[in-house]
C-alpha cells in the first residue's frame, strides 16, 4: 500500500466502525519540545490520522491559538529538520498515518526533493500546505507523488464549482474541506449551507472528505455526521495540550455512538 493510500484506509476503517474519522492536529514541540514524542503517541491512541504542524513565523491562515503554539515551538528551536529526524528515530514508529502541515517557505528552504525523501524515511504519509493553492503546487505534487506521498488539497465554501472539480481530481489522501472563510480556531456553527457545501464536495471527491476549521465539540460533530468522512480537530486539541489535559481522553469524548 502506498503511503497516501494508508490515509484513506485509516479513514475508511473509522467509517466502518460507524464513526467519522478524527484527524488530530498538534503543533510539533508545543507546549514542550521534549514532550513531542509522548504527545504524538497519546494522540495516536485516539485519532485516526495525525496532522503535525511545522511551526512558522508568519502563519497567515491561523488564528491566535495556532499562532501562539507556533511561536512557542519556534522559541524552543523546533524546525522541520528536527521534526523529521525525531519521527525517523521513533521506535516503535507510530502506526497512525502522519501528515505534515506546513507553510511553504520552510519546505522551500529544505528543498522539495530532499523533503520528499526525508518524509518517506520518517514514515510521513503526506503534506498539507495552507499557502500553496492548487495552481502553484506542481513541483511539490511531483516530488511527493514520486514517492507515493499525498499532497492534501484544500477547498473552501467560496471555491467555484469548476475549480472544486479540478482540485478534487488532484487530491490524494483526503480533501480538506475548510468549513468557513476565516482563520483556524473559531467556533463553527453548522447551518444547512455548510452541510450542503460538504455534500457538494463529496459528490466530486474521489477520496474521503474531512472538514476542518472551527470544529471544537461533540455537537458540531453530530451536525456534520453523514456529510463528511472525517473531521480535523486543530485549535481545540492544541488548547487541551496547552492546559495539560489528556488528548486521547478528550478526543474520545467527541466520538458518538450512532452510525455515520
Amino acid at each position, binding site marked *: 500500500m502506498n503511503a497516501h493510500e494508508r490515509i484513506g484506509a485509516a479513514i475508511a476503517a473509522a467509517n466502518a466502525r460507524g464513526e467519522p474519522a478524527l484527524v488530530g492536529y498538534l503543533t510539533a514541540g508545543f507546549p514542550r519540545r521534549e514532550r513531542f514524542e509522548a504527545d504524538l503517541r497519546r494522540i495516536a491512541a485516539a485519532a485516526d490520522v495525525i496532522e503535525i504542524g511545522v511551526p*512558522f*513565523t*508568519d*502563519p*497567515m*491562515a491561523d*488564528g*491566535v491559538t495556532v*499562532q501562539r503554539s507556533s511561536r512557542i515551538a*519556534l522559541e524552543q528551536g523546533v*524546525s*522541520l*529538520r528536527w521534526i523529521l529526524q525525531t519521527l525517523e528515530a521513533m521506535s516503535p514508529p507510530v502506526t497512525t498515518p502522519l501528515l505534515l502541515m506546513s*507553510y*511553504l*517557505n*520552510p*519546505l*522551500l*528552504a*529544505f528543498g522539495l526533493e530532499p523533503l520528499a525523501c526525508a518524509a518517506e524515511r520518517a514514515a510521513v504519509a503526506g503534506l498539507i500546505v*495552507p*499557502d*500553496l*493553492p*492548487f*495552481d*502553484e503546487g506542481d513541483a511539490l505534487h511531483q516530488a511527493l507523488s514520486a514517492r507515493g506521498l499525498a499532497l492534501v*488539497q*484544500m*477547498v*473552501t465554501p*467560496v*471555491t*467555484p464549482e469548476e*475549480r472544486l472539480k479540478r*482540485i478534487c481530481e488532484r487530491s490524494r489522501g483526503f480533501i480538506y474541506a*475548510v468549513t468557513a*472563510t*476565516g*482563520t483556524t480556531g473559531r467556533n463553527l456553527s453548522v447551518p444547512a449551507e455548510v452541510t450542503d457545501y460538504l455534500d457538494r464536495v463529496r459528490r466530486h471527491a474521489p477520496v474521503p472528505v474531512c472538514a476542518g476549521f472551527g470544529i471544537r465539540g461533540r455537537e458540531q460533530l453530530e451536525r456534520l455526521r453523514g456529510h463528511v468522512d472525517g473531521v480535523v480537530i486543530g485549535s481545540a486539541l492544541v488548547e487541551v495540550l496547552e492546559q495539560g489535559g489528556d488528548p486521547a481522553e478528550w478526543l474520545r469524548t467527541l466520538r458518538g455512538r450512532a452510525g455515520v
Partner: protein
Amino acid sequence: MSVNATDVLADLTAGRLPDAHGRFGPFGGRYVPETLIPALERLDAGVREHLHAAPFQREFAGELASWVGRPTALTFARRLSAEWGARIWLKREDLAHTGAHKINNAIGQALLARRLGARRIVAETGAGQHGVASAAACARLGLPCTVYMGSIDMERQAPNVGRMRLLGATVVAVTSGDRTLRAAIDEALRDWVSDPMGTYYLLGSAVGPHPYPYLVRELQAVIGREARAQFEQAEGRLPDAVMACVGGGSNAIGMFHAFVPDAGVEIIGVEAGGRGVALGGNAATLSFGRPGVLHGSYSMLLQDADGQIQETHSVSAGLDYPGVGPEHALLARIGRVRYESASDEEALEGVSALCRFEGILPALESAHALAGARRWARAHPGGTLVVCLSGRGDKDMPTLQKTLLAESA
C-alpha cells in the same frame, strides 16, 4: 530557474511582465490560502476590465489632478548639488496630498474597489503613510476603512495614528509577530480571509500575490512618467541616473518603470542597511536575502536556514520589512537596477542635509535615497541624478526628537 537578461528586459519593455501566471520571470505568483483565490481572481478580472479603460483612467486622472495635487514638482536642489558635486533633482512626492506617494495607489485602488462593489476596505501600514492615504481615499469615496498597524510602529509614527482616526479609519494595533509592518500584513490578510468577497484589501506596496505587484506598479508609474517628462523639459535630455528607496518597493517601481527601457539611464534602489550586515540588523532584502515565499509571492526574503522569516531593523518604519516586490527581485537578477543599502546613520545625515540646504524635511524612508544620492554624487561629479523624494518627514518627529534633535540639544 535561470533568466536571460536580454530577453527579460525585452519582455519588461514590451509590457509582457507579469505574465499570465502573475510571474516576473521566476518571481511573483500567488501563494495564498485557497479561500482568497476567488477574491484574487475577481480582482484580477476587475483590473483587466477597468484599469486601462477610459472611464477608470478619466476618473483616476481627475482625482490625481484635483485632489492629490499632481503633477508634483521636480525641484532642482541647488545648494545640495553644490555641496555634493552632482546636479541633483528631487521628484517631490512629499508634496502629494497626505504627504507621500502612497496616495497615488490608495486613491487608485479605492476607485477600483468601489467599481468592484466592495463594502469595506482593509489596509496595513508600516510608517502610517499608506494607512493615512487609505483612510483619506476611503473618506473621499465614502467607504469604511480598517487599518492594521504594528504596535511598535504606532509608537514611532504616533502622529499618523491620530491622522488616520481623524480621517474616520479604525486603527487596529497588531501585537502578534514582530509588531511591525510584516505582522500588520499577516493580520490584514487574516481579516480578508474572513470576508474575501465583501472586503477589499488595499495593499500598500508592490508586494503580495498577483495582481497586486502589477496593480501597484501601474498606479505608481505616474511618478516616473512625470519625472521623465519634467526632466526632459528642463534639461533637454534624460538624467544619468535615477534613485529611490526600497522597502516593499512601491515608490521605487513607480519611479523606475518609465526609465527601465532607457538603456543610458542608470537605476539605483537603496534599501535600509540599519545597524549593519548582521542578520536582524537591517532590512536590505536584495543585498542579504534568498528567494522564498512570504505574503503571497515568491521573491527575495530575509530568512534563516530553516526558512523562518527574520526580524528586521531600520530606523524607518516604512522600510522595516523582510521582503521586497517580485519585480525588484527580477530587476536585480538581470542587473538592470543596482540595489545598495544605506545605514540608519547615513539616512539621518540625509535628513539633516536636505533640511539645511533645501528647506525640505524628508521622510526617513526617502532619506535613504538621499544617502545613496550623496554617494553617487561623490563618484560622478557633474553627473545628473533624479531622486524620488517619496514623502515628507513630519511623521518622523518622535524618532527625530530621539536622534538628530537629541544630539544637537
